[in-house]
């Protein structure tokens, strides 16, 4: 996983509440067997009309947001389906972080697995960044080590699980970390209640 430390870039505002993963990447794009090729289909039903032509008014299609790498979203961003394709498509479309006051629980974990930073802000701070993002001239800096987000002269702090933070900063793979505890897994398995169901 690519390490995450300081993210600098342009914000794009999508401040409505409860943007679900069906909106981020619709079902017809879940039929692949790879993690790639999803970026162009991000927010497909909002980004393209029924003829497949780009919707010029959709915020991410506007030329002034073409370079955006930080999405500023409403609360409960990424609720709904567990599809990790949502994170793969955001990442491939150039997003490195998402600012919101809360996230769908599965999407938040999926972000951490892919080095896409979900920044959980206080509700008031999320609102301020949504306003700042409405001006495409404003850039943002997210400093993961100090847990600060800054745009212009406004700075907010955010909380993150210290273990997750360390893993992101170092780009550590979760499976590699867990396998360091293999002896603990072996010991648990040896003592595990025998009456749990097994197959095969």
């Amino acid at each position, binding site marked *: 996983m690519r390490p995450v430390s300081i993210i600098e870039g342009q914000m794009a505002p999508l401040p*409505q*509440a*409860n943007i*679900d993963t*069906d*909106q981020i990447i*619709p*079902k*017809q794009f*879940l*039929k*692949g*067997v*790879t*993690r790639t090729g999803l970026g162009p289909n991000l927010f497909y*039903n909002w980004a393209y009309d*029924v003829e497949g032509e780009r919707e010029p008014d959709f915020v991410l299609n506007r030329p002034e947001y073409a370079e955006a790498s930080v999405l500023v979203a*409403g*609360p*409960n961003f990424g*609720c*709904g*389906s*567990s*599809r*990790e394709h949502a*994170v793969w498509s955001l990442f491939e479309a150039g997003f490195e972080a998402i600012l919101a006051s*809360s996230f*769908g*629980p*599965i*999407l938040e*974990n*999926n972000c951490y*697995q*892919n080095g896409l930073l979900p920044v959980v802000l206080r509700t008031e701070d999320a609102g301020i960044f949504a306003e700042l993002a409405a001006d495409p001239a404003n850039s943002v800096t997210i400093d993961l080590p100090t847990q600060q987000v800054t745009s212009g002269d406004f700075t907010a702090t955010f909380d993150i*699980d*210290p*273990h*997750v933070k360390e893993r992101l900063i170092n780009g550590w793979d*979760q*499976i590699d*970390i*867990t*396998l360091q*505890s*293999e002896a*603990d*897994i072996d010991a*648990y*398995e040896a003592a*595990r*209640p025998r*009456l*749990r*169901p*097994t*197959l*095969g």
Partner: protein
Amino acid sequence: MTQPQTMLDKVWDDHVVRHASGEPDLLYVDMHLIHEVTSPQAFEGLALSGRRVRRPDLSMATVDHGIPTVGRELGINDPLSKIQIEALEQHCKEQGITVFGVNDIRQGIVHIIGPEQGITQPGMFIVCGDSHTSTHGAFGALAIGIGTSEVEHVLATQTLPRTKPGSLAITVDGDLPLGVTAKDVILGIIREIGVNGGYETVIEYRGSAVTGLSMEGRMTVCNMSIEAGAVAGMIAPDETTYAYLEGRPYVPGGAPWEEMVAYWETIPSDAGAVFDREVVLDAADLAPFVSWGINPSQVVEVTGRVPSPDSFENLLERDSAARALEYMDLEPGTAITDIRIDRVFFGSCTNARIEDLRAGAGVIQGRTVHPDVGAMVVPGSGLVKLEAEEEGLDLIYKEAGFEWRDAGCSMCLAMNEDILLPGERCASTSNRNFEGRQGRGGRTHLVSPEMAVAAAIEGRFVDIREWQ
């Protein structure tokens, strides 16, 4: 004297492989459920890193999301879905994982067949690359949905690192009024607490209206925990749970059964256990609900009207309502019973178990589907379908004009050919009324099975309590 514990505390503690201060707990996964759509990249990642599945015997796979519900004996037409389905079967064969495949009578929606086979049991930690894994919490299991990277993690290690969520007790006391189903209980709860109301918590559903539900009803309730933003939902195991499980294929009999029941009896929350938050609802306040918007908290009693966005004080909710009415093509003040529908989808992991099919058939009473409505029934598993056919339910549905399909997720997420056309309005027993969920431009109204069948017959929503 030890502190009274919640059911979450107990099940959590039972699965901690490794605990270290300041780190997530490493939890042992008792059962990993797998389906064709969220697993191919996980198997690929496993192969690329030269790892194998640690415990194929604690994994179970089936095909449900992309599979056709008609004509599948002729093969899978969609070339992409065909590749996914074949990839799953190939990966599982290589790794020694049991698959309930396309031609297996036990095939079905993963959250329906786990309980049906007795693979889902109280006290287990169950994961699956699917958000509706919360369904299995109905047995007093801790069951959570995960993404594909974590599917790979579980395949490789049979564990999952997690920080313990908070606890939320939702108590629904009293008898459910006539015509009010488990679906209405959970829709009523989500309306009360909101689609984010369960954020960073595991919900424990309690109270006489919950314990009075069958296992099928409890699964319907726990299924939609994710729709309230919760990590999981749980219901304490009791005699209803044991009676459901006894004699199922993966549940042993004799002395082991007695031993298991003795363990299961220790799982419910202790008297005096403290929850981080508590919400109480009165069953008498619940009614048959119909969703009018684009998230599952946007519901109203069937006797109600489509609300005006101005009636919401919260700005985000007001915006959401305005957007919902535009997408749904509804005017504020419209009576729910004046909303006409084009399609009915009766299926999904929320409401496609045998009890749902019996309840829906029970309201037909010799009537037929409205000529303007296309209606389909999609049983949740091959065995549910078979059982329904043995009871003659298929004939009741078919004679009434419903299509009788093979098992799968079908039009809940419309990955296969079962899809709404733009502008079509659907009464659906599924769990999500998101924009485009059942097809781009399609409009979904979430209801109970009985309400869906009645709407199919009348061509509009009717109050099941009065409709005869």
